[in-house]
């Protein structure tokens, strides 16, 4: 009797947990079915590769944002940071062509520079907010403006273009593939796996959860709160730099409009994926699915005339609100007080 009860309960609670975890995934499947119904070209290899490749930018950044948000922070500067890093990479690589030529070395130096800048910018966000005891929202709002204006300054209000020869060497990083899988998708996958392991299986990840759920408890549990929080911003910076490394060969240019609103798309992907905005709970796979969903919506709108493509943002906004409403879960037991 007793054991029967227990089996029943665990079975039912298992179902709810599965539903919650699978929610974003089910929604994505729904979107795919919708996409196929609207236009058969949706499921073509080319279109799918396109969706996943585009999702990779936001997705990689969003994996980093999952750490920041899980630990109770927020980073608004990622879009500007990506633009700034792109700009700096292009300027430096163009300058190096004169001495090193347009070879692989030039590109490698650009890549290293990107990582150094990303990690550095993340560290600045983290240290200023923790050591300076300023809200992360304010700090990253500030750095957002700073990076954006730096790239505008570097481009002198116009567009920075990568040297044509370097572009040829760099091109495979975005357009290449391994066994038919585009490189950006592979990088996205690798970042997601690494993020999953780090967040869910290591002491660092556990500390992120603890800090996000109650910083005071974390402090009383001998956790170096400032250090861990700063690390989440460094991880975020690193993710931005990886996304930028893939992004630069796509257009080969950077301007003041590069990466605009990426921060909001990244945060949206994180939230759609089931991570709590106030911290304490994060889910990397949810974030991955969230990023793919956002790109898929844009893609479907491109394939149909029913809704104007200009309404992309409105549909995304609606999806974000509905996703959070569904995940909160109390719509089901509202009346059973």
């Amino acid at each position: 009797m007793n054991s029967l009860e227990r089996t029943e309960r665990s079975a039912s609670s298992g179902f709810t947990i599965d539903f919650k975890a699978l929610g974003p995934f089910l929604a994505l499947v729904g979107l795919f079915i919708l996409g196929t119904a609207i236009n058969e070209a949706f499921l073509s290899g080319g279109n799918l590769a396109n969706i996943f490749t585009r999702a990779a930018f936001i997705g990689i950044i969003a994996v980093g944002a999952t750490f920041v948000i899980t630990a109770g922070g927020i980073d608004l500067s990622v879009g500007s940071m990506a633009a700034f890093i792109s700009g700096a990479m292009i300027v430096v690589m163009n300058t190096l062509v004169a001495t090193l030529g347009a070879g692989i070395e030039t590109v490698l130096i650009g890549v290293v520079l990107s990582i150094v800048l990303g990690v550095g910018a993340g560290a600045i966000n983290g240290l200023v907010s923790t050591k300076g005891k300023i809200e992360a929202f304010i700090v990253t709002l500030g750095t957002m403006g700073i990076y954006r204006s730096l790239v505008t300054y570097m481009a002198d209000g116009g567009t920075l273009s990568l040297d044509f020869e370097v572009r040829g060497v760099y091109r495979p990083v975005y357009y290449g593939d391994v066994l038919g899988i585009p490189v950006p998708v592979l990088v996205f996958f690798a970042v997601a796996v690494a993020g999953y392991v780090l967040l869910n299986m290591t002491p660092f990840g556990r500390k992120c959860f603890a800090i996000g759920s109650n910083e005071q408890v974390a402090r009383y549990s001998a956790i170096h709160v400032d250090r861990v929080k700063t690390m989440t911003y460094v991880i975020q910076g690193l993710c931005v730099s990886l996304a930028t490394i893939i992004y630069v060969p796509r257009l080969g240019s950077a301007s003041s409009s590069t990466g605009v609103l990426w921060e909001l798309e990244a945060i949206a992907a994180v939230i759609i994926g089931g991570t709590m905005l106030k911290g304490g709970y994060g889910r990397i796979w949810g974030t991955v699915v969230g990023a793919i969903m956002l790109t898929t919506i844009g893609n479907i709108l491109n394939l149909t005339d029913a809704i104007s493509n200009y309404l992309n943002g409105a549909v995304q906004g609606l999806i974000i609100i509905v996703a959070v409403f569904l995940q909160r879960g109390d719509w089901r037991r509202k009346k059973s007080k």
Partner: protein
Amino acid sequence: MTDAAVHAVNPDQQVRTRLSGRQICKSFGSAQVLFDVSIDLMAGEVHALLGENGAGKSTLVKILSGYHQPSSGELVLDGAPVAFHDSEAGENHGVILIHQELNLAEQLTVEENIFLGREIKRGWFLDKATMRQEAAKLLSQLQCDVDPKTRIRDLSVSDRQMVEIAKALSKKADILILDEPTAVLSGREVDILFDQIRRLRDQGVAILYISHKLDEIKAIADRVTVLRDGRHITTEPVAGLEKDDMARLMVGRDIKQMFPDRTPGHAGDIALSVRNLSVDGQVRDASFDLRRGEVLGFAGIVGAGRTALMEAIIGLRERSSGQIERNGNPVAINSLQDAKKCGIAYLTKDRKGSGLLLNMEMRPNLTLLALEKFGRVIIDRKAEEAALETAIEAFDIRAADRKSKVGDFSGGNQQKLLLAKVMETDPEIVIIDEPTRGIDIGTKSQIYHFIGDLTNRGKSVILLSSEMPEMLGLSDRIAVMAAGCITGILEGNDRNEHEIMRHATGISGKQGVSVHE
């Protein structure tokens, strides 16, 4: 007014039942938490509600005040059946519940909180002058010298409690329910609160008073209703009951031995030595030794600097001077991490605010402080599960479901889990701040025996407590603090309430130097 003679129900005041619950049952989902409970609240009477954690006290008072609806049974107000659809309906009938967790808007001022949602207006605008006057009047009735313009976040917890009571009074409460109001109050504040409760009672207010503290119930209540496992056990006049009787009724069995045996003279070498430790504005020149296997109590009124001293020892608070030695060797402790390495662990008194992650399950809570023990690169979940298994066994943590959030646990189980969490680091010295705040008597005794076990295993315990019986029952020696100074360390026959109070108030012992901010 406060004489014992007037304490019994005033005979010339007509005893009148105001609010009754009749055969109240309540289920949450499939779990029934109240079974046919009946209770009568009379005008001009303080009725105590007593029961262990999880006995159903809070659920019952939430039903009486309209926060919950009974599954069956009815409420009767002044002889007529009544239903409160929500707490507002209850308040409109004069039934006001003051929650255990205070409900004040921290960023608003005292007066704004008192009149929140019922602002006095003149035309379209707020009549601030009148509200301020009214607030000041209410607070002065409570002998609470808080400026109505102060923001709640700048008030001490006990002042906040007084504001809650002022707010209830302003709503013209004539049936007042207080859910463990003294959990955060110091002795003097409890006295003031009791005076107010007596004053309200004498004005004919019906008061329901929930507490674990048997002393308080003896002091303030006229009748007591005991709940156990959701069932009504008895309702009796308090005058005829001894504390032991109440404890037995509440627990349902005799508590054979509240405190572990203390064998005098078993203390070993000095494990921790603190010399001339000061914290700016809070602790001055504190020195003491802690021996292996002993419980050293720290007594004193709230604000005497006990918690500040302990936090300074474990590196959570900056020291302005002082040395710390472990086993005779000087150690530099500048963070909790350092303290952990030195084998010192600290059990916070604020288990909800700084002890446990309430939105998480037990496993991550248990291992959080000793995470490196479970893997430096990848956390070994199997080892965590095994540790949880051991802890549940060792500390008798009773959780229906291991996956449920610890925020849903009773205070007793939370405290046991917190103790288990701290013990994961295998400390030599355990500093315990208020180990049994808001915990029922059965669990209290268990926790006392856990502390006894620690010392039997050669560990040392520093105990901070504002409960005198626990201080006297557990401690081998008692250091008393007043105004930031250790005014004396009492041993042997000096270890009694009288001496503690003399030292805590600075009447005897080393002169308590007044601490300047």
